[in-house]
């Protein structure tokens, strides 16, 4: 079943067209990786799906429902779509657990006591049980990024968007974050990633899309896209990064 569907999505910043008619279907429980050079439009596309950026043209459907109608209240949609950023963006003045509980407390009007058990279980699940009371600057990059993932998950989203979440990490910390993504995929989460981790995309993704200049040049299962790319631009890109 199609969970998320993009139809001819166009996003411009001034005269600069960042997404130039992108169409894409993401099935429920599927992991889709967006690859491509910096500036290809991967991050912007994710921000558009989360309604952090309004799109100029096209439609975005979540469960068949158009979420890109101009003037639509973005809040209820954002609750259903979690997002994790390259620079973690944890709130530096709150402990890890406060970071995680803020949105459910305010949006779902739940008390700390009500939330505590499920939030603790999430911290536990992602190996952060002893980091709940730490402030972000007391955590390593990998731990911060995992807290950011827990924070997004605490809203019980149906889709998760990951915007180059390992790009700012020291190489030895990348593994622990990718491990979390595998865990999430196994639990059936629908996920979209913008990533430079080709090895991970090749091994874990259900579908890989190669973006260039705001267009999807080629898409397909990783076995095809990485082993037998048909488009010369894809081949050229892969030759440079692999």
């Amino acid at each position, binding site marked *: 079943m199609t969970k998320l569907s993009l139809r001819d999505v166009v996003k411009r910043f001034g005269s600069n067209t960042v997404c130039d008619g992108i169409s894409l279907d993401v099935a429920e429980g599927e992991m889709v990786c967006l690859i491509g050079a910096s500036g290809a439009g991967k991050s912007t596309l994710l*921000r558009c799906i*989360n309604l*952090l950026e309004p799109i100029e043209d096209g439609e975005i459907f979540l469960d068949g429902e158009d979420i890109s109608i101009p003037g639509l209240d*973005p*809040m*209820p949609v*954002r*609750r259903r*779509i*979690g*997002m994790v*950023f390259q*620079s973690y*963006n*944890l*709130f*530096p*003045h709150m402990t890890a657990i406060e970071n995680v509980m*803020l*949105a459910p407390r*305010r*949006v779902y009007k739940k008390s700390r006591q009500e939330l505590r058990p499920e939030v603790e279980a999430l911290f536990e699940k992602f190996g952060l049980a002893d980091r709940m009371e730490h402030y972000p600057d007391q955590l390593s990059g990998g731990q911060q990024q995992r807290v*950011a993932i827990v*924070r*997004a998950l605490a*809203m019980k989203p149906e889709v998760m968007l990951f915007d180059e979440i390992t790009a700012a990490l020291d190489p030895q910390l990348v593994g622990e974050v990718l491990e979390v993504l595998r865990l999430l995929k196994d639990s059936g989460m629908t996920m979209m990633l913008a990533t430079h981790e080709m090895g991970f995309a090749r091994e874990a993704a259900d579908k890989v899309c190669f973006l260039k200049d705001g267009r999807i040049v080629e898409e397909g299962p990783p076995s095809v896209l990485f082993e037998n790319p048909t488009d010369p631009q894809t081949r050229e890109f892969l030759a440079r990064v692999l």
Partner: protein
Amino acid sequence: MADQSAAGRTRRQIYEDRLRRRSLIIAGSSTTIVVLAVLFLVPMAPGWEKVQKSFFNWDVFAKTFPGLLEAFMLDVAIFAWCAPLIAILGLLVALARDVRSPALFPLRILGAAYTDIFRGVPVILTVYLIGFGIPGLGLPRPWNSPYIWGSLALILTYSAYVAEIFRSGIESVHQSQRSAAESLGLSESDTIRFVILPQAIRRVIPAQMNMLIALQKDVALLSFIGPVEIFRQAGVYKSLLANFTPYVGAAVIFLAVTIPATRYADYLLAKQNRERS
């Protein structure tokens, strides 16, 4: 390893010790020269005797100091009720200038006009205009009190500056924090209240400390519209004793408060700079 002398220090350490000693000697001797010059040259000025008698008269100082200190308590009281009101009004104006809702657009204009006007007029003028102007409407007691309207003048002026500092703090919080909050489905007002403001306020505390110090001094301006606070009291003593020493006494009292406060603000600022680097 002949260079690594008795104490086992490296060449570098020996070199740096020598540098340190040299700069200590230079700083010490230049300070001594300046102090000596002041001590010897100033008394050589033709009017020194007179100045000493009328500004640094110990007997007058000792006699008027307790009275000045008592009058200073009025400054402290005015300061104490103005400061929290300034913080609240300043924050409200800062927020008003950032509202996005079109219905509240007049609030934005009002906020901008307010900060422009009150930052553009000298404090003393505002104190005069409000302090004399509003009681001039013939209001009944206690609404004709210069305490109320003088304080209002200070509150209005300082809130304009304080609002601008809050606003700079709000703008210094990175856009990505807003993105993160919005992506979680937090409302605009929750984002400001729980994510943006706590960070913004923390960042501007040292700057706001400096505003508090300035306010503490500017309370003395209210003396021009009536209240007998320390500056006015010093003026009374001056007329009574035909001597300017009470003004020096008043300055000493102000310094006793402002110097520690200034040092503390600088300390906070330095600490913050260290944390950010």
